[in-house]
């Protein structure tokens, strides 16, 4: 069984981004970039399925400029077998539907049994790509997964939903998107990082895919959020209750 894992290069989750003074976007110069945390969980799940003997090959794919090969290498160092890089020009913003359409072409060529994506990228917070890919390819989907069990041509996915947990059974091939509790990703070991340097990455220009790359979404402006100012420290519980009652008037 082959697993495809799409990974996104995103701002490291520890970074507090700043909006550019001209309100055209956020300032990403000299900001630490990393693999989107949910994609890391996706790779980990794929590797575990390979270690269990369920999967035979794990392929990572990323769409972006040259720099995203770093994240593909991270995937390879964690244990993926090979990479595909769909190269865009630097500065080009690709929207989720375009990402999904490009991934659809990869799915058609690679014919994976399972595609595992992150549930959301922590930069755009869109939470769309996996679902769009599933719809475009006609695959069933199991989003926000906290458990993935593959058996006889199908996969049972336990999903984190607002009311608790839900388990669905999907016929393979299927799309799964990861939630936080699916697993705890490992760290790449130094020997594996060295080994990853020799694993193949197939680089393809985005133009080869025949996907219309003009987005219908225009960013008009990006602003800093209204700043919340910290209030006061209260001395004790009595003062807290008094303030909540008489000043804030949020309790009776």
């Amino acid at each position, binding site marked *: 069984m082959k697993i495809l894992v799409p990974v996104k290069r995103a*701002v490291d989750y520890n970074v*507090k981004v700043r*909006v550019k003074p001209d309100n055209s976007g956020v300032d990403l110069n000299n900001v630490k970039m990393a693999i989107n945390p949910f994609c890391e969980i996706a790779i980990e799940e794929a590797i575990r399925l390979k270690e269990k003997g369920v999967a035979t090959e794990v392929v990572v794919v990323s769409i972006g400029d040259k720099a995203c090969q770093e994240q593909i290498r991270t995937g390879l160092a964690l244990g993926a077998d090979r990479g595909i890089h769909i190269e865009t020009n630097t500065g080009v913003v690709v929207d989720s539907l375009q990402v999904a359409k490009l991934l659809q072409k990869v799915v058609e060529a690679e014919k994976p049994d399972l595609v595992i994506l992150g549930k959301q990228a922590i930069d755009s917070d869109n939470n769309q790509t996996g679902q769009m890919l599933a719809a475009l390819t006609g695959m069933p989907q199991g989003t926000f997964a906290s458990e993935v069990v593959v058996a006889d041509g199908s996969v049972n996915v336990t999903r984190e939903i607002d009311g608790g947990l839900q388990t669905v059974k999907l016929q393979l091939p299927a799309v799964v998107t990861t939630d936080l509790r699916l697993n705890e990703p490992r760290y790449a070991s130094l020997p594996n990082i060295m080994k990853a340097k020799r694993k193949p990455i197939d680089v393809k220009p985005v133009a080869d895919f025949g996907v219309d790359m003009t987005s219908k*979404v225009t960013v008009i402006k990006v602003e800093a959020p209204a700043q919340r100012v910290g209030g006061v420290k209260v001395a004790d519980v009595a003062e*807290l209750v008094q303030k909540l009652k008489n000043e804030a008037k949020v309790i009776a």
Partner: protein
Amino acid sequence: MSVLVYAEHDNVSLKIETNKLVHAALGVSSDIIVLVAGSGCVAIAEAAAKISGVSKVILADNAVYEHQLPENIADLVVEVAADYSHVFAAATTTGKNFMPRVAALLDVAQISDIIKVESEDTFVRPIYAGSAIATVQSADTKKIVTVRAASFDAAANEGSASVELLDTVKTSEKSSYISAELTVSARPELTAADVIISGGRGMQNGENFVLLNGIADKLGAAIGASRAAVDAGFVPNDMQVGQTGKIVAPQLYIAVGISGAIQHLAGMKDSKVIVAINKDEEAPIFSVADYGLVGDLFDVLPQLEAAL
């Protein structure tokens, strides 16, 4: 211009998110149609018909829609959407699940998690865990939009729209429902509560969450948690507040033993009043709290319960 609003419910009751969606949709058009898809949902359709501003309710009542399987729901919504310029659904785990499918099947982009409607094609949405607020414009023929309900007021229940039955049945043999483990609680839901008290890693274990119960009872509050508390297994996943959990904006949010990581703040910083209880006076949560109490939660919580 007309908006199809997808009703949020659990086959038992209509959720307040639906009223908030209607309110958001009124920013686009005054022609609002609500689609209720589920099983045994006549009463829910009737409740939706009472929301002020709704001109019609369409009810697709069939067992195939009971568990909101996205394959079925998306196909249904795509068909119904043919008559409307916009589709709005809540950015809940239901809306997030099927709406991108609808968008992809219609070959349009989705605008996710909006907090404001500027005009019929322009919307405001947070990105980077709320560190930036983007205003985006869609040139697509149909606008597929998920809405952050916490950012909108609820439309009133003073309407009397008609309910139309739709017997379209969409199913897929590729996906089936197996089971659910739903949290049963007598408390209000996190996304509907006026008061929330949340515990973090500082709670130390799941048993200690009982310290929050008495306070929650007295305040009619829902109980939430940080990711660290959920990851450590103190409490279930549906209690997580934050960038990648639930987004809430109650009148009062009390954070107990929570440091205030940006991912947590992203889920609660629009609360009207924030209280932080933390033993570390340098904890970042104090920078957003209206009232901060530096102290050991194991001392403070019993005192607070007694004082209420």
